[in-house]
């Protein structure tokens, strides 16, 4: 199995390290030809405006959208969640729009409001997930096809729509690999016991 990690900007190294710890091969994606042959794509945290600009300038939006519509699983964290959303509150910045959700950017406030917390994620089991929120977005509303996987207070911070997973926090900054494993199962990796 080969997972592409969008490497235009942001925390792509951490995602690759997490995949390596699970014995999964990964490839940095900066140009369309690097998408060939991947079984899934991770869009890391970073600045969504920077990534959007580079996705546009280097002609990555269309090929990613096409591959996703033809069945490629996509996992977006933080900025990646923003790029997956159909609507972004108060912004016309470019996006993939693969998930039927509306997100608000920097929705918890500026950096001094960034936080970490133990989050209950029933689909991953009883053990809570340590979730790191950095100038994080959250999901304001979801369409009928979208399954809410976790909330912090009343705010939706993790959701799945078919083979697309979007999360507002940074699992790649912790040692907990459960969310990555959930994604890899979508990509066809057998569930390990």
């Amino acid at each position, binding site marked *: 199995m080969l997972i592409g990690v969008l490497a235009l*900007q942001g*925390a792509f190294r951490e995602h690759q390290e997490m995949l390596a710890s699970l014995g999964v091969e990964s490839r940095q994606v900066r140009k369309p030809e690097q998408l060939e042959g991947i079984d899934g794509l991770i869009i890391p*945290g*970073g*600045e969504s*405006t920077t990534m959007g600009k580079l996705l546009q300038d280097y002609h990555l939006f269309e090929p990613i959208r096409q591959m996703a519509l033809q069945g490629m699983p996509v996992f977006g964290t933080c900025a990646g969640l923003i790029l997956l959303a159909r609507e972004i509150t108060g912004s016309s910045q470019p996006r993939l729009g693969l998930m039927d959700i509306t997100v608000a950017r920097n929705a918890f406030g500026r950096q001094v409001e*960034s*936080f970490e917390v133990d989050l209950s994620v029933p689909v991953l089991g009883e053990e809570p997930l340590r979730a790191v929120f950095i100038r994080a977005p959250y999901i304001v509303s979801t369409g009928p096809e979208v399954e809410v996987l976790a909330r912090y207070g009343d705010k939706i911070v993790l959701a799945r729509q078919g083979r697309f997973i979007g999360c507002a926090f940074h699992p790649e900054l912790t040692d907990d690999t459960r969310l990555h494993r959930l994604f890899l199962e979508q990509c066809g990796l057998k569930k390990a016991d």
Partner: protein
Amino acid sequence: MAEKGTWTVKKGLAEMLKGGVIMDVTTPEQARIAEEAGACAVMALERVPADIRAAGGVARMADPEVILRIMDAVTIPVMAKVRIGHFVEAQILEELGVDYIDESEVLTPADEHHHIDKHKFKVPFVCGARNLGEALRRIAEGAAMIRTKGEPGTGNVVEAVRHMRMMMAEIRRVQNMPREELMALAKEMGAPYELLLQVAEQGRLPVVNFAAGGIATPADAALMMQLGADGIFVGSGIFKSKNPAARARAIVAATTHYNDPKVLAEVSRNLGEAMPGLEIATIAPEQRMQERGW
């Protein structure tokens, strides 16, 4: 219980800036140009380093009004500078809600012996360093991000290269050293032993390491990335050039595609004149900003 201002959260924002370009701006208009060009953050200043150098005198934290207007203008993170050791300027910036504080040699130091105790703050700090020992002292004080000092405001990349090469060479040396020699080296470098041990084990700094000081072209940015920088600060290099918007965009592309000469050749074309450069030897040693910090 949600915990704010933790080490993970402070260091984490720097991780999110990796592979990006942080640009010095002095007005909301410049901040918008930077954001539009793909900057991953901006540094809000009253004057860019080249003008600080030209003006001489004492350079201080910017007027909060300037910083607040820039914070209002963009959605990307906003950083701002305080004088070395000036913890009250830092308290003010934290109160304003800036996203990162640069305890910077570009401003005139306020303390000739001590840097700020950065652990006390919820807002994260970035500090300059010329070598591994200096970087680890700053990290021990609580810096969650490091950058090379270079020689700010010169448009001359040679000092940033020197500092990055020095840091990388020292990391390689530490990695290959028998464990029993580390303590003596820690003493020699003036670096905390525990952090040095961490570098030996991981083969890199415990925090993100950007390049700064004298970067003026897309080629300069890619050079620093190939030498091992995690990302790029551009101070005077953008808004002291003839065509800031085009140059900013080109430096962003060069930082992402730093290993791709085809892209570098393409984005380096037709940028107009770069900022005027300064030969380091023409700057009197006491005027060199990199000598500030202890």
